[in-house]
């Protein structure tokens, strides 16, 4: 099924939504290749997310400046969640107020860019897991990043102003991560969803519960929006949101049946037929998703990060992605 919005191409760079709203897209939307947004009114501007490293973020900011007078200085940055591909570039906006959910700020501190760099440094000694990790994160320049944490924390739904426009910040986590937050701009009939939406790629359920994710999809479907900018993948419509919701319901059912049959999370991940989601990218994320869902169902503990990446490397080797 074609899930991209028919008005927009899926090409790297700036996409004008209209009325001072923009999206910045990074195909193919795989590990670290995230989207971001810009909302402008008059001489005021707000970014929804920065990118994984400084060079990528500076390219984006240069394009925003070319496109909009109001984006010469970014006044406000909203981080939709704590993963580095949505906040590492905060340091490129030294004068901006940085707003995020309290849980996002806490987890940013716990997962600094130096940690990603240390993982990459260790990768050559780690066999297939190290190769897989490097294939995911090797293209990014973590050494360029000086972590800039949020200075304004939200706990509940909050509205901020960009010129005369309202931007509603709507916490919907924990789902993908503990602090997931949507940025809804009614005047532009646009919502920036962060990683509540992966379009054309498998979502990663780092946190759960899945029901929160389903509720977040329902919340988006109920909005008066024409344009939906996901965290990864092409700009989409409500049909894209319905598909992500369908994924969550389907995978929860598939995982639960295998949990109740006594499988472990890895057996379940390798056993689930992906069906209509088979051509979505990064299929090995089913491993993380099963681990998180099994924990939600009552399994003791969560696997360590190297166990998850080793299992994903095994999955990717066993079920290579078709082009």
């Amino acid at each position, binding site marked *: 099924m074609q899930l991209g919005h028919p008005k927009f191409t899926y090409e790297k760079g700036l996409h004008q939504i209209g009325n001072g709203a923009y999206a910045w897209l990074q195909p193919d939307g795989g590990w670290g290749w995230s989207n971001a947004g810009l909302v402008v009114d008059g001489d005021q501007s707000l970014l929804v997310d920065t990118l994984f490293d400084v060079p990528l973020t500076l390219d984006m900011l240069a394009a925003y400046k070319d496109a909009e007078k109001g984006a010469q200085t970014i006044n406000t940055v909203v981080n939709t969640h704590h993963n580095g591909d949505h906040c590492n570039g905060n340091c490129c906006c030294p004068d901006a107020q940085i707003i995020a959910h309290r849980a996002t700020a806490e987890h940013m501190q*716990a*997962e*600094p860019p130096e*940690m990603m760099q*240390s*993982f990459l440094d*260790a990768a050559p*000694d*780690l066999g297939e*897991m190290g190769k897989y990790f490097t294939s995911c994160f090797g293209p990014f320049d973590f050494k360029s990043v000086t972590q800039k944490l949020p200075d304004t924390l939200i706990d509940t739904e909050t509205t901020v102003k960009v010129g005369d426009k309202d931007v509603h910040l709507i916490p919907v986590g924990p789902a993908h991560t503990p602090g997931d937050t949507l940025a809804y701009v009614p005047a532009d009939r646009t919502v920036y969803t962060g990683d509540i939406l992966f379009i054309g790629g498998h979502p990663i359920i780092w946190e759960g519960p899945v029901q929160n994710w389903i509720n977040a999809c329902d919340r988006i479907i109920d909005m008066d929006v024409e344009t939906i900018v996901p965290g990864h993948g092409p700009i989409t419509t409500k049909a894209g949101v319905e598909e992500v919701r369908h994924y969550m319901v389907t995978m929860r059912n598939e995982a639960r049946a295998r949990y109740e049959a006594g499988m472990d999370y890895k057996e379940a991940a390798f056993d689930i037929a992906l069906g209509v989601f088979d051509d979505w990218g990064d299929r090995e994320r089913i491993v993380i998703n099963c681990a998180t869902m099994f924990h939600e169902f009552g399994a003791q503990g969560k*696997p*360590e*990060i*190297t*166990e998850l990446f*080793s299992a994903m490397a095994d999955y990717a080797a066993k079920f290579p992605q078709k082009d």
Partner: protein
Amino acid sequence: MEIDATGLSCPMPVLRLQKALRGLPPKARVTLLATDPMAKIDVPHFLSENGHALLAHRTQDKAAPGGMDLLIFEMEKA
């Protein structure tokens, strides 16, 4: 306190560490010895996720039994 997790595969070093930290007071200092290279990722990740401080980590080449590299992590409980 020193925890010897040499010869153990991940996630055992982290599980040993987790168990040991549970019984210690805040600010207690612990040294973990390991040989599985995966510990270079798992130990710092575990400490950071749980608010503990990694004070230092170093590798002594071929210093562990069997000629394996010895990984030494020094940490402080939150």
